[in-house]
């Protein structure tokens, strides 16, 4: 099954809609609750990152019986130093993002913690690709 969603930069009202939709699908597939939570938290933090930093992005979630592969590709500033960005507390978020309850430098560490495999590619000035792969069965 392939699910696709668009994300608009700056659109905090809709941030999380895709994560919510993916959560519903995984529930219908009887995925264990703890595994659903890992997937949706990783995806939700990624959605918030795209809304916070990029002009737009797209999500593709490929679901098979025992695995989900989520690719989130954005057009944005990119991440010049990924290692640095993975450090807890490192942030480039605006005041507006902090007012939304995010932007404390915890997004990428949270994404990593909730991903079985995380792959990030980024070209400064062009954009970022985040790929999250999680097992769906115990």
């Amino acid at each position, binding site marked *: 099954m392939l699910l696709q969603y668009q994300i608009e930069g700056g659109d905090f009202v809709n941030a*999380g809609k895709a994560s919510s939709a993916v*959560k519903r699908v995984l529930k219908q597939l009887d995925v264990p*609750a703890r595994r659903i*939570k890992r997937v*949706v938290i990783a995806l939700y*933090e990624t959605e918030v990152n795209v809304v916070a930093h990029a002009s737009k992005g797209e999500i593709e979630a490929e679901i098979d019986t025992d695995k989900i592969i989520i690719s989130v590709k954005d057009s944005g500033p990119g991440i010049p130093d990924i290692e640095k960005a993975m450090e807890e507390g490192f942030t480039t978020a605006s005041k507006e993002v902090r007012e939304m309850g995010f932007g404390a430098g915890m997004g990428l560490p949270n994404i990593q*913690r909730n991903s079985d495999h995380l792959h990030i590619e980024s070209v400064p000035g062009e954009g970022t690709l985040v790929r999250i792969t999680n097992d769906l069965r115990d």
Partner: protein
Amino acid sequence: MALQIGNIAELLKAKVLTPELDLSNEVKHAFASDLMSDVLTGDYEKTILVTGLSNLQSIRTAEMSDIREVIIGRNKSVSKEMIELAQENDIVLLQSSYSLYRISGILYEAGIKPVY
């Protein structure tokens, strides 16, 4: 110690914004934060989120974290969209004029445990 969410609303003189949802849900723990990324790091069971952050992301965060009860403190106004999103996700939403410190103190005294 567990309290029903309806009783918690009475203790905190809170307004129940989702009256059509089940108010007999049991609450055993509470977590207080305005930083949603912090909330997203936790594991919760029968936990109420106490927050002064009143926007759609507080409800989304509860949804992703499997939190079924949220209380907005400091008399922050709550939008219609937040109430609708809470209803859709079976999240009991309360609103209180008390500060987060006061809410937390009352819940602690009533036997509601911290998450850690």
